[in-house]
């Protein structure tokens, strides 16, 4: 009986968009892998598309399981789930397999699992749980620090694994903090630091230092002789100058060589078209050659003939761009935008803060993946190697996004019961 009720309460718009994305992702995985010489069908298990079908089927089972579990479980067990996955992150550092420079995989039989993926929803749950406690105020600095710590811990562990791309995803949870009342200055400072970092790569240190001095003097002028403001401006100037001076250290000691290359590549795309720039150059060529209407399904030459690396996973969008053209790409953007806006709408209608905050965490994580994945394929951001949700090939990522999304749909379906319970 309960299931019957659930069917009416679940948000079918999101479910529909989810299945559209998963299904078209599956078709594109086949297209990306398609080799006209090897006449394998889309269902063949020697193809990524065949394997993806297993992941899709198992995702459906996961959805049913999530729907069957009592909605209160997610709230109650949030910290425990979080604790388990943080522990797994530590384990994988000690025992995991190293795959292309990242020690973030567990090998189970012939399948590999990446705990860092699952940590995303665990962290989302924990953050929601923490911020939803009515006794805490997000404006309160102590709460903010603990909130940050909740996602900075897995983030640092994943950086330690060498997977900067996935680690950056956790940074997106700042959006949740912002929604829940964090001072916007933190967001502004964050963006400022990122801009300053990029400037140090483009301009020489001397020019930047002179600019900082000039800006600081200007700031002092504007501060209109208020000593506290002058102090803040001077402090900001000193910090900025120190940051500029330390970028060399960041570049050489924090970023790995391939990441340094990718940052440099973004700043000058023609610097090394056959080396570090290969991926960006080729993905742009594949997408750009699609034209308005695309080359047609399975007719793409760039992805089909392997010019684009990681074409079924991180660069799956290239296949869409090449074979479906601008119109297909636009429809994909539209689908994601619809999904994200719908999720915000759902989040805002939640009666319980836990569900609302969790909803925003889902939006933040999906939005980050969507924005940075597509930005890197069209050359707007360095290649950081994160999948396009629901679209890219891979069990860990499809499971993670499915769990992430459907926990929220489950919570949403029971939003009226929250009041009853209270």
């Amino acid at each position, binding site marked *: 009986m309960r299931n019957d009720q659930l069917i009416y309460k679940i948000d079918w718009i999101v479910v529909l968009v989810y299945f559209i994305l998963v299904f078209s992702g599956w078709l594109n995985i086949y297209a990306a892998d398609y080799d*006209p*010489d090897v006449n394998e069908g889309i269902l063949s298990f020697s193809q990524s598309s065949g394997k993806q079908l297993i992941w899709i089927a198992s995702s459906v089972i996961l959805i049913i399981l999530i729907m069957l579990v009592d909605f209160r479980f997610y709230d109650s067990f949030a910290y425990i789930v979080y604790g388990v996955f943080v522990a797994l992150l530590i384990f994988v550092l000690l025992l995991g397999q190293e795959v292309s420079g990242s020690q973030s995989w567990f090998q189970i039989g012939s399948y590999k699992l990446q705990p860092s993926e699952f940590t995303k929803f665990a962290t989302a749950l924990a953050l929601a749980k923490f911020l939803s406690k009515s006794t805490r105020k997000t404006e309160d600095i102590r709460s903010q620090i603990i909130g940050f710590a909740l996602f900075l811990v897995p983030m640092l562990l994943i950086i330690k694994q060498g997977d900067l791309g996935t680690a950056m995803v956790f940074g997106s949870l700042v*959006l949740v903090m*912002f*929604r829940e009342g964090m001072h916007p200055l933190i967001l502004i400072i964050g963006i400022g630091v990122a801009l300053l970092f990029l400037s140090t790569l483009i301009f020489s240190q001397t020019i930047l230092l002179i600019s900082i001095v000039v800006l600081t003097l200007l700031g002092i002028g504007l501060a209109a002789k208020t000593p506290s403001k002058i102090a803040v401006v001077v402090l900001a100037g000193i910090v900025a100058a120190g940051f500029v001076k330390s970028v060399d250290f960041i570049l050489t000691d924090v970023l790995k060589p391939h990441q340094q290359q990718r940052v440099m590549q973004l700043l000058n795309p023609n610097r090394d078209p*056959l080396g570090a720039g290969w991926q960006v150059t*080729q993905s*742009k*060529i*594949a*997408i*750009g*050659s*699609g*034209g*308005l209407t695309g080359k047609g399904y399975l007719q793409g*030459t*760039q992805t*089909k*003939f*392997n*010019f684009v690396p990681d074409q079924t996973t991180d660069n799956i969008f290239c296949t869409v*761009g*090449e074979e479906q*053209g*601008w119109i297909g*790409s*636009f429809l994909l*953007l*539209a689908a*994601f*935008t619809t999904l*994200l*806006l719908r999720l*915000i709408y759902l*989040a*805002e209608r939640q009666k319980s803060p836990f569900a609302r905050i969790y909803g*925003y965490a889902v*939006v933040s994580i999906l*939005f980050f993946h969507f*924005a940075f994945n*597509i*930005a890197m394929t*069209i050359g*707007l951001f360095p290649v950081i190697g994160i999948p396009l949700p629901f679209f890219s090939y891979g069990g860990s990522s499809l499971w993670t996004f499915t769990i992430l999304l459907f926990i929220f749909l489950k919570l949403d379906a029971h939003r009226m019961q929250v009041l009853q319970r209270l």
Partner: protein
Amino acid sequence: MNARSFIIQGLILFIALVFSIRLFSIQVIDDDYKLAAQNNILQKIVDYPFRGLIYDRDGDLLVYNTPVYDLMIVPKEVDLEDSTAIMELLEIDHATFEAKYDKARRYSSILSSKFVEQIPNEDFARIQDQLVKYSGFYPLPRTVRGYEKSILANTLGYIAEVSRSEINRDTTNYYKGGDYIGKVGIEKQYEDKLRGKRGVRYKIVNVQGVVKGEFKDGEYDTASVPGQSIQLTIDSELQAYAEKLLAGKVGSLVAIDPKTGDILAMVSAPSYDPNQLSGRNLSEFGPSIMNDSLKPLFNRPLQAMYPPGSMFKTIQALIAMQENKLSPTEKIICDGSLIGDHAPPGIYDVERAIQLSSNNYFYKVFKRVIEQGDHDSRYIDARIGMEKWNDYISRFGLGNRLGVDIPNEQSGYIPDIQFYDRVYGTNRWAFSNIYSLSIGQGEVLVTPIQMANLGALLANRGHYYTPHIVKSIDDQGVIEPKLNDVGIDEVHFNSVIDGMQKMAESNFRVPIQDIIVCGKTSTVENPHGMDHSGFMGFAPKENPQIAIAAYVENAGWGARAAAGTASLVIEKYITGEINRPWLEEFVLKGDFLDERQKRELEAMNKAKKLAAQ
């Protein structure tokens, strides 16, 4: 809704908008990416044409194409763990492998370049099956020249990869690096006929360069056009026989069909096996052949220049008769006092003077041509006479290139007024300064082919066809030979030819059963060693079929080596067999070389043997 929620929604819409615009710009507005995509997947495969074949006058194949394989490397795809196996397969050592691999990588790690050049077919068959195991290597089929018979090397020439300077000189922009081009000989002369036209095929390739199909069903492909085949005037059997006779000697022989100007045989000795300059042999044997002191690459029939000696006397007699300064029956007493002479003193007419090669007779005859009494001053008189004489001489095809269709023909040298003015000063020379011209000595120089042509124009009694080596080309058919008239009345030839007949009959090495040979020997004075032996003639006397000139250097008397050799070639051509084994043996074994040349020849033979092994 919460105000910050709107900010977040705005951010999402803003990003979606930025992406849409960016995508519109690279997908719809910018065409560069479409071009780049096409460049990515298109591989231009050059379809090298078959070079034209070369046949002899009877249609026997002389030069064909033989497949070789350039082994190409794409360094990025090479698994260096296989390198030991690859080195064994290709039979190269570690250092060579490293050097070649580094060179290829410096060129490009993803583009292919030559790793091993021109692997012969038989070696390739051995490695072909193994090769597929090693990624990054693939064969590119090419063709190099193969030769049915080891003859005519100098005339055929050879092909090799086009040089940078040849590409720069090429105004038609046909040649690209790696193309083959005719370097000398017929291969060079008829390069634009023989080479054909390159074709191009566009293939769709994947990132590894593996061909995945045709581009637009081959719409933009062009097929290669095979080169034109060429038929030579050479009689390869005669050529082989003549080469055999001259083996181990230094000299040359040219045989011409007087009725057409067809070159039947053209021998330059010493020569080499044309296969030694084909394909990868070129780099192995090329340098030793090029640096050989006996200059086997020097095409003597066209490039060697000698004083004509006594052969010149036939011309002197004809000019004098045409100028009405000599009658064929006129008796001239020669006592041998004017100039050194091997002919005995006595009474001479044209016939006897040619037969016995009287120097004193031709001294007198040439004096009559030069000193015609047109002016009181003997200097000016000599000028006038010399001018007339030069006029005749040039019509005999001397002093200028005949225009043979083989590169690097030399013109020889005929001194003229300007030359003597330079040497002695204007009007400061007379007959006494130039009399040695009368017997073909002095400053005059001719090439063997010019002397063979002299034989042809004597046989034809006053005209000749420009000697040529190509009889027909596929697209042009038979090439009409050019007829040249010497300007001497036919009647004047009788006495000269009779004299040549007598001269030939008096030399026991020349006469052939049932064939009347007309000839003139010549002993070319050589200040550096033994005299060169020369012979010029034709046969049969009536309806001549072959005109010939032969030179054997440092072989002494013209009557010995050259006359015997020429006579055997004539016999072979007309009768198809040799009935004088004693003469053949004499010529083959003939000891014509001086000590220095013998030593050099020995060394060369040794090198050849080594190369053959």
